[in-house]
């Protein structure tokens, strides 16, 4: 020990050196001073002056301290987090990340709960986003530059009704003549093609099979810039030729990939068709369509709009969609018609991609909003977890702060921890999303394109990375700011009395947010459920239970127009007779188009009025109403006598009677404009049937007897006590008839009803799942917040109990202290739901977006769940022994 040590140490103290290093420096300096002193003394300087001059060596100690601090900065690897000394930014981050990982590993259950919560939020968001990506963002595989457009005829009809002026805009397929006129607009379109789906009955298959084919104009394949694998595609000369092009799938499946198929013929009901080419495997629509045939326009299609086909075109290279619309504006015409005030016709152009997805867009955004709510709730949960955990770390924070860690530095550390947590949640979320995507696809209430299925591609992964980062900042910022505000005096003590930490204000704010978000989700789910329920309780007009549908039709070989009707009539009579004889069958009938299949409109004249009415015609066989359970309100059903050569008869529905104000409908005469000029006598009135869908009001309907019209293709319906048993027997009844039978499917009519409500059921199911998840997360969050708050107030509770407060009263105080937050959350949630549900109004049926029972039920349920979540931890606090509680702090 040297005499200089005290002086040296006093000066070094401020440099904040590592103790070992300080000792070393101190020794070296002491030696220097020793040498200096010895030198001074030996040169004859008096002792006192020598000491004084020796200490002069240290006189610029401020600078020394400063220099030493700079030089002797301890290497970063051994610094504890919270070190104040400036470091390169990146080194600080990697240090923070390592520290965060260590600290997360140390509290495993916290990390597990937080990561799981985040994974739910991020996973759900990622899964839904991948659907949005596949449908809205990603271009169509067969149209990467978005130049494929649909071209159509627009028709706006303005007229007057009893309610005043009405306008209706229709979207029609233009006649082939118009198509030809538009097709030559090479200034706008590179190519334009028309196509329509058609059924083809294959005779080579055993049993006879009916498949979908696409009838196309020769330019169709040019739209997709495709060339055949084998053979050729259609050209202009093929229009009336019996030729076909087959898909790759069809080639492999039906013909075993045999290349000699090109040039061979396939027998169909409409005659033999020669295979001229095979399409490449990746050609669009290949998954649904096996055969392509030339579109041979008939007379009606040539001249009339609305023949049910579609027009696609490819825009010329330098033409935008907007320019194409402007270019087509010249086809706008206005004309007068006898029944309308005016009819304005024009040409519409829209991107095929847009056409495919526009029906789904609103639903996708609704789902995205719902999962965002869940993600936000998850964020709030994790924020509260962090706060609760953070206040347990107040001593750590205080110690680090007292060692000189600035608030910013501490906040940075906490934020890093949150982001690391969010990243872990993100990784788990992506795994969950992958699973969710597979699980949710069947119940997604949108039509996901099969050729472009949702996938966790780079864009989706990038999205979830971004969401994870944002999430980390979102839930980490509040705790970071809050916790970095350390109180040095109280928190360095072994147990600071720190009720101020994470006090009621922060806790209450989080409860408000959770309740509000969860309520919005619940209202959404509730409205969807109510809509679905309403839909199921709609009076469809028929009784679908016990009804089986037998899709069977005669294969009319060597068909001639003269005999078709007669042969078909005999075929159906035979099979209906056989099915009626099956055990338990109480009624059998037939119709051309079943409810939910399709609906056509036509004009009809009534004897009583001069203006034509709009009706939807259907061909049926006697027994149909009985089989479907449609009540006959007036008059009678058709009979076997209502056949050809007998006077024409018709049955109408109640809507028609009401609409036409027929006071006494029976015996009146009606005439369909499309058919002959024959007048038919109304012999019966039946109840309304919701033919278009359960959601849509019935139209005015006119039933005619298929025995009279000779409609060649019908669907048989049978009412049976045990439909399944009858279905099994029905197929055998189709053998040995006068004509070969093409049996497609035999299934209960309930299948159709379910299919028609499937979209609503999916919406309700998915939103209920999301709503339930949101409520569950919110309940867990509120439970956690209350538990924490109660734990912090153990002492207060102890005091209250010691002073004689009854358990009931204490319980009241605790639960009551959260009640304002819950009430505020409910109020805000209702407000938010009110604002948000306006956008989902279009998905609702039979309920308004502000349906009071739904709002009240959702609010009540959520408030109860929230109160229960605060009640449980409060109960636990009551079991605390006052003595223990008082000692607790």
């Amino acid at each position, binding site marked *: 020990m040297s005499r200089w040590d005290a002086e040296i140490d006093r000066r070094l103290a401020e440099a904040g050196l590592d103790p070992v290093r300080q000792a070393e*420096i101190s020794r*070296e*300096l002491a*030696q*220097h*001073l020793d*040498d*200096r002193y010895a030198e001074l003394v030996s040169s004859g300087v008096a002792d006192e002056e020598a000491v004084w001059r020796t200490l*002069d*060596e*240290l*006189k*610029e*100690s401020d*600078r*020394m301290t400063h*220099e*030493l601090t*700079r*030089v*002797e900065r301890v290497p970063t690897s051994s610094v504890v987090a919270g070190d104040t000394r400036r470091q390169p930014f990146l080194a600080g981050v990697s240090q923070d990340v390592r520290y965060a990982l260590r600290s997360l590993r140390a509290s495993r259950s916290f990390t597990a709960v937080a990561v799981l919560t985040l994974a739910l939020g991020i996973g759900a968001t990622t899964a839904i986003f991948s659907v949005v990506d596949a449908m809205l963002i990603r271009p169509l595989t067969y149209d990467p530059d978005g130049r494929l457009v649909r071209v159509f005829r627009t028709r706006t009809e303005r007229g007057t009704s009893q309610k005043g002026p009405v306008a209706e805009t229709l979207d029609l397929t233009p006649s082939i003549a118009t198509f030809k006129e538009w097709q030559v607009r090479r200034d706008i379109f590179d190519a334009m093609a028309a196509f329509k789906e058609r059924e083809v009955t294959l005779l080579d298959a055993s049993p006879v099979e009916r498949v979908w084919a696409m009838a196309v104009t020769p330019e169709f394949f040019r739209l997709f810039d495709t060339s055949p694998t084998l053979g050729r595609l259609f050209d202009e000369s093929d229009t009336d030729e019996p030729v076909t092009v087959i898909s790759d799938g069809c080639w492999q499946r039906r013909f075993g990939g045999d290349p000699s198929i090109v040039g061979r013929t396939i027998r169909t009901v409409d005659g033999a068709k020669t295979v001229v080419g095979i399409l490449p495997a990746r050609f669009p629509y290949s998954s649904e369509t096996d055969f392509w045939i030339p579109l041979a326009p008939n007379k009606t299609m040539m001249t009339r709009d609305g023949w049910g086909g579609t027009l696609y075109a490819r825009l010329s290279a330098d033409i935008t969609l907007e320019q194409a619309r402007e270019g087509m504006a010249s086809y706008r015409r206005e004309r007068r018609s006898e029944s309308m005030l005016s009819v304005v016709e024009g040409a519409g152009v829209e991107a095929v991609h847009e056409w495919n997805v526009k029906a789904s867009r609103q639903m996708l955004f609704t789902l995205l909003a719902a999962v965002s709510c869940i993600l936000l709730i998850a964020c709030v949960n994790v924020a509260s977890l962090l706060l609760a955990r953070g206040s347990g770390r107040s001593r750590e924070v205080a110690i680090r702060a007292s060692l000189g860690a600035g608030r910013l530095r501490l906040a940075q550390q906490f934020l890093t921890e949150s982001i690391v947590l969010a990243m872990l949640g993100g990784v788990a979320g992506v795994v969950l999303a992958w699973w969710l995507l597979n699980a949710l696809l069947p119940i997604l209430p949108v039509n996901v394109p099969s050729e472009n299925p949702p996938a966790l591609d780079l864009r989706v992964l990038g999205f979830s990375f971004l969401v994870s980062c944002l999430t980390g900042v979102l839930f980490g910022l509040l705790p970071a700011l809050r916790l970095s505000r350390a109180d040095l005096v109280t928190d360095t003590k072994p147990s600071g009395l720190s009720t101020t930490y994470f006090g009621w204000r922060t806790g209450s704010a989080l409860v408000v947010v959770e309740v509000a978000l969860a309520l919005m989700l619940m209202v959404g789910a509730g409205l969807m459920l109510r809509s679905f329920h309403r839909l199921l309780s709609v009076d469809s007009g028929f009784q679908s239970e016990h009804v089986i549908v037998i899709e069977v039709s005669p294969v009319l070989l060597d068909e001639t127009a003269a005999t078709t009707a007669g042969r078909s009539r005999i075929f159906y009579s035979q099979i209906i007779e056989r099915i009626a004889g099956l055990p338990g069958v109480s009624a059998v009938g037939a119709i051309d188009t079943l409810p939910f299949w399709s609906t056509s409109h036509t004009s009809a004249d009534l004897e009583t009025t001069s203006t034509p009415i709009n009706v939807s015609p259907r061909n049926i066989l006697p027994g149909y109403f009985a089989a479907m359970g449609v009540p006959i309100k007036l008059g009678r059903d058709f009979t076997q006598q209502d056949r050809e050569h007998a006077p024409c008869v018709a049955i109408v529905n109640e809507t028609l009677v009401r609409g036409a104000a027929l006071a006494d409908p029976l015996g009146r005469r009606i005439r369909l404009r499309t058919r002959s000029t024959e007048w038919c006598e109304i012999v019966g009135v039946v109840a309304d049937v919701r033919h278009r869908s359960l959601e849509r009001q019935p139209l005015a309907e006119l039933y005619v007897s298929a025995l009279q019209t000779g409609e060649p293709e019908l669907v048989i319906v049978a009412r049976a006590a045990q439909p399944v048993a009858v279905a099994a027997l029905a197929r055998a009844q189709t053998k040995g008839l006068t004509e070969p039978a093409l049996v497609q499917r035999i299934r209960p009519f309930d299948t159709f009803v379910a299919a028609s409500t499937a979209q609503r059921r999916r919406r309700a199911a998915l939103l209920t799942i999301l709503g339930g998840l949101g409520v569950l997360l919110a309940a867990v969050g509120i439970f956690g917040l209350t538990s924490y708050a109660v734990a912090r107030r153990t002492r207060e509770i102890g005091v209250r109990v010691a002073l004689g407060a009854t358990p009931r009263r204490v319980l009241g105080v605790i639960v009551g202290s959260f009640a304002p937050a819950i009430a505020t959350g409910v109020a805000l949630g209702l407000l938010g739901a009110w604002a948000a549900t306006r956008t989902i109004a279009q998905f609702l049926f039979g309920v308004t977006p502000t349906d009071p029972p739904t709002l009240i039920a959702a609010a009540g349920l959520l408030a109860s769940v929230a109160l229960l979540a605060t009640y449980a931890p409060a109960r636990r606090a009551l079991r605390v022994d006052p003595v223990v509680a008082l000692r607790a702090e």
Partner: protein
Amino acid sequence: MATRVRERELKKGSAELLILSLVEARQRHGYEIGKLIESRSDGTLRFSAAALYPLLYRLEKRGWLEGRWIERAGQRRRRYYRLTAAGRKMLAEQRSGWRSFVAAINRVAGLETS
């Protein structure tokens, strides 16, 4: 601008140059270095301990010097500093830099009268 920066660096580096030069031939301890600077400059240059040691530590930190505690017979343990390979390279650089700096000053200030 660039010249001014280099000038400042050179001035600051002059102390480093002195120290590096002194340990070039053999290792020396701190007091010895301080004494040598003072004596060889005829008392014009003098570093107090407060200024000298932080400088030594900095050079050591940069890897130009290496300090070791050495006990010699009949002497107390002292910390000796010797030049490292990197230090040798730096010394050469600083010498040439300093030389041209001094030459420039001389030329500009008209000190080259002889």
